[in-house]
């Protein structure tokens, strides 16, 4: 996806027409004709409104509108109103219906103005028409009517709603109309004409409006007011601080910001995460400084052999752990960059630590380290291999880090389930294991069959032959 985006950018930057890839190759003229016919055919379905045609549309340069204006009018020919009964019933949409008596205006004043063609009327267009202008000047619409006009894209004015009661009525009607566009428009007006304290107080009991304001402030990046709003609602949580945090790019500032966040009223659980995040970033800053120097100095072998691909700053904890297992595995537990220290400090689970260390050491092909990870001694001093992860997964991780067959087979052999063991062994060509498993199963047929799969004259073939020819061996 990223790639195709980049491609498109190249393409668009060049802005040359010949490279443009529209799929359509048809003759344009015939297409237009076809389109006209189609549009014409719908036109018949639309009742003509002659009054409408009287209003000649004029473009901004003063020229009359060209050839296809009619088709556009057809598309938008939805604004003609009739007094007929609604064909579909109204359903209850959860919000309380507001009583009209509050408004003090009658419904009859609604729609007394002429309805214009075109669903959405902008101020500019209106001003060109005396008709609309008149309407606008003489308007005495109620909050409800105003909201309806706003929904229909007709001219309106909010300035005359000055009492708090009117403003709130306006808001409540907007909310009950379920039109987010209008709700936000009213909120912008309220934000401009009401004190913050009053606005916030009123929004507390108006959840839908509140969410629209939060979204609007987020979109306009009005961080200051957004934080104030959320603080006044006691909603300090990840939503607010998080966004602010992400906009800080400098790591030291980021660290300081995080420190200031620690005192915020997060849930206890989240506050622990934020604390960890702070500690981690602090740690990363130290490691990054030291390692960058070591890398530049050119004296530390591992940085020469495996140059760092990116800075460790702002990486997740597990990535940091991997990094430390890769570059700082042998360090004593006391140092900041020691993998064991990271494990201790952040209480990383055994399994998580194991998976990460395994992948890092396998990547370096440090097979003895890998081996040591599994080795545990019991009280008698015997060693045995133990793993918090199923050996099937271990094999998978090793194989993805291109471990050689000799290494793989040690771990395939530890898979408990015989069937699974055989299938893994076959997949990774660990012949010995397959042969031994068949031997233990006393299955001569399978062993015979497997003989065909190993290389001719190889040690494996000889081993199979020895087993098959051994007269003392008992088969199933």
């Amino acid at each position, binding site marked *: 996806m990223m790639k195709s985006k980049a491609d498109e950018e190249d393409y668009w930057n060049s802005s040359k027409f010949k490279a443009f890839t529209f799929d359509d190759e048809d003759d344009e003229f015939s297409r237009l004709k076809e*389109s006209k016919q189609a549009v014409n055919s719908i036109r018949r379905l639309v009742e003509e409104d002659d009054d409408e045609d009287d209003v000649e549309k004029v473009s901004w340069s003063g020229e009359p509108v060209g050839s296809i204006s009619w088709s556009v009018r057809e598309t938008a020919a939805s604004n003609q109103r009739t007094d007929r009964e609604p064909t*579909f019933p109204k359903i209850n949409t959860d919000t*309380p219906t507001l009583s009209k008596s509050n408004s003090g205006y009658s419904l009859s004043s609604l729609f007394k103005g002429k309805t214009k063609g075109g669903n959405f009327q902008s101020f500019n267009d209106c001003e060109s028409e005396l008709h609309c202008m008149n309407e606008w000047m003489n308007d005495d619409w109620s909050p409800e009517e105003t909201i309806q006009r706003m929904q229909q894209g007709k001219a309106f004015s909010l300035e005359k709603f000055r009492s708090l009661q009117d403003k709130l009525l306006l808001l409540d009607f907007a909310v009950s109309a379920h039109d987010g566009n209008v709700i936000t428009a009213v909120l912008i007006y309220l934000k401009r004409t009401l004190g913050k304290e009053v606005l916030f107080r009123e929004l507390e009991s108006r959840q839908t409006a509140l969410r629209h304001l939060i979204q609007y402030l987020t979109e306009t990046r009005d961080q200051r007011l957004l934080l104030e709003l959320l603080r006044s609602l006691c909603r300090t949580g990840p939503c607010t601080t*998080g966004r602010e945090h992400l906009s800080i790019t400098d790591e030291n500032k980021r660290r300081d910001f995080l420190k200031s966040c620690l005192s915020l009223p997060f849930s206890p659980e989240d506050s622990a995460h934020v604390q960890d995040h702070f500690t981690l970033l602090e740690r990363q800053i130290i490691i990054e400084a030291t390692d960058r120097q070591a890398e530049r100095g050119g004296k530390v072998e591992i940085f020469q052999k495996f140059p760092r691909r990116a800075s460790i700053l702002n990486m997740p904890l*597990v990535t940091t752990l991997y990094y430390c297992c890769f570059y700082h595995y042998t360090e004593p537990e006391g140092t900041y960059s020691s993998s064991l220290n990271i494990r201790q400090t952040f209480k990383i689970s055994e399994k998580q630590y194991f998976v990460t260390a395994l992948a890092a050491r396998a990547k370096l092909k440090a097979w003895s380290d890998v081996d040591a990870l599994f080795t545990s001694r019991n009280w008698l001093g015997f060693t045995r291999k133990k793993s918090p992860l199923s050996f099937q997964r271990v094999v998978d991780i090793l194989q993805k880090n291109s471990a050689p067959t000799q290494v793989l087979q040690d771990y395939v052999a530890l898979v408990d389930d015989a069937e699974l063991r055989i299938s893994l062994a076959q997949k990774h060509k660990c012949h010995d294991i397959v042969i031994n498993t068949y031997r233990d199963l006393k299955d001569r047929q399978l062993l015979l069959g497997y003989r065909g799969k190993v290389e001719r004259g190889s040690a494996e073939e000889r081993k199979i032959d020895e087993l098959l020819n051994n007269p003392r061996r008992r088969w199933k």
Partner: protein
Amino acid sequence: MSERCPVPLLWPRMAHSARRDSPELPDFSLLKRLARDQLVYLLEQLPGKKDLFIEADLMSPLDRIANVSTLKEHEVDKLYKVEYKPITSTSDQLCFLIRPRIKTVKWICDVANADKATGKFRRYKIIFTPQKFYACEAVLEEQGIFGDVTTDEWAFYLLPLDDDIISLELPEFFRDNFLAGDQRWVRTAGSALHLLHSLYGPFSKVYGIGRCSKMAYESWREQVAEGEQRTRQAEIGRVFLIDRDVDFVTPLCSQVVYEGLVDDIFRIKCGCVEFGPDVTSDKSVKVMLNSQDKVFNEIRNEHFSNVFGFLSQKARNLQTAYDKRRGMDIKQMKTFVSEELKGLKQEHRLLSLHIGASESIMKKKTKQDFQELLKTEHSLLEGFEIRECISFIEEHINRQVSMIQSLRLLCLLSITENGLMPKDYRSLKAQYLQSYGVDHLLTFANLRHLGLLVEQQPGETLTVMESKVGKLVNDKTAGKLTDAFSSLARKSNFRALSRRLNLVPKSGEEYDLRVPRDMAYIFSGAYVPLSCKLIEQVLERDGWTGLEEVTKLLNGNEFAVTGSNGADSKAKNDAQRIILVMFLGGCTFSEISALRFLGREKGYKFIVVATAITNSSRLLESLLDNHV
């Protein structure tokens, strides 16, 4: 396994129970022509040469309805993509074709203000599509640009992606509406419905479920009431509206039907996919995926396990057709070349593309242990071996395997189990943050808010609290409170729904994917998509009667209404079997496949209208917050 199968493998041809009298679909190319003509009209509103700036996510939709010569004919000189940086255009007229977004309008203000500062005079025109918002005009006013810029609306609501798929191309609908609770797109959805109603209606029956569906219905109804009634023969009789948050399980499952799988892996954008060198073994190609592609059309709804067999059979047939050349005389050869060869070549090209895509899918899926992943998903759906599933997810997280995959499995676990046990929730969340970064605290807050990933509440605290508070206040405020609580108290009730609607067939039963017996085939027979099951049930009952328990589990908000023109003429029978399903918040290709199957079984034709085509990755990506 399909090797054993004789030629007619696919159910379009063998579906025993399918009805043959399915009605014809209306012609939606009309929508494209209307949109194009309106755009041309708007461009003419700014006469003379002009440069056109197009918002990035409008380019593909624009590609589908117009071409560059259309634009050039109307004096568009150069085309640019909106990139939020200073512009290089030297034209004295600039036209901006954008979505109504504050960020973009701010950028345009910056451009205009920069011109003012350098004393450069230009004309500016902003075309908002599909509509403009007052908030955008407020930005123009604040920035001192209002009046210097003319604005217009391009009512390009609906883009037909195929014969039976129409998209609003508004992926942000999902986040804005369901996460932010911003209802700016409700009227847009109503207007889109209104457009369809005026061109292909009148509808006689509308069913729906979900809060947004109700609001969209109301908005549409009001717009119909404002407008003119027409008497014409309806082409679409019934409509079903459904909110995405009614069913989150379906879009979170791995898709295994060909079209869905292609979308999951290669991402289909606006009906077009880009196949890279791994598919073509040459350079990348962009391919339109729709019913025009004869090969694709036959495999798009197939379970992936059937696709290989079909393709290889097809390849053999093609070989035979080519082989006919042998032993032809010159005259026969001439006819062959002029009549058949072109078609064969075309088929050959398509066939090799889809074979390449299938191979690439196989490779990718084997690498990531797809079998095991599917097994986990099926166990979650069935509610079986949950501990094993949790440890599988945990290992996924520990190994830092795809961040989105891990999140998807976590959400699936939470929804199917009605929330995670507090101990599991904390541990998995902590591990997730360790693996993928603490920034995801925001993601978790979002997911909790939507009810996608939640902690189980001890006992019934919330419901009790809700009813207590409800008694204290009057009805008006109770509505608002329920609203506020709904996100917190939102329970998925998946297990109960699954039992009631029989969504998960008993395991252990053989399911022949070549002869699907129900819609579960789209998930290998493991799960019937909840969204489609609801549609099936409501259509069968002609309403919600008998589904009271189900709607209660889905938090209500269901409706079924009949229009006054509901039952007048008999000739409408055909239209009654054409059903428009509108998914508010997105729809997956798997759901579309399931509906196509249902349509064939019951003699319906479904038209899917979606605010956008979605899948698990798109859905979850839209809820991340670390990209701010």
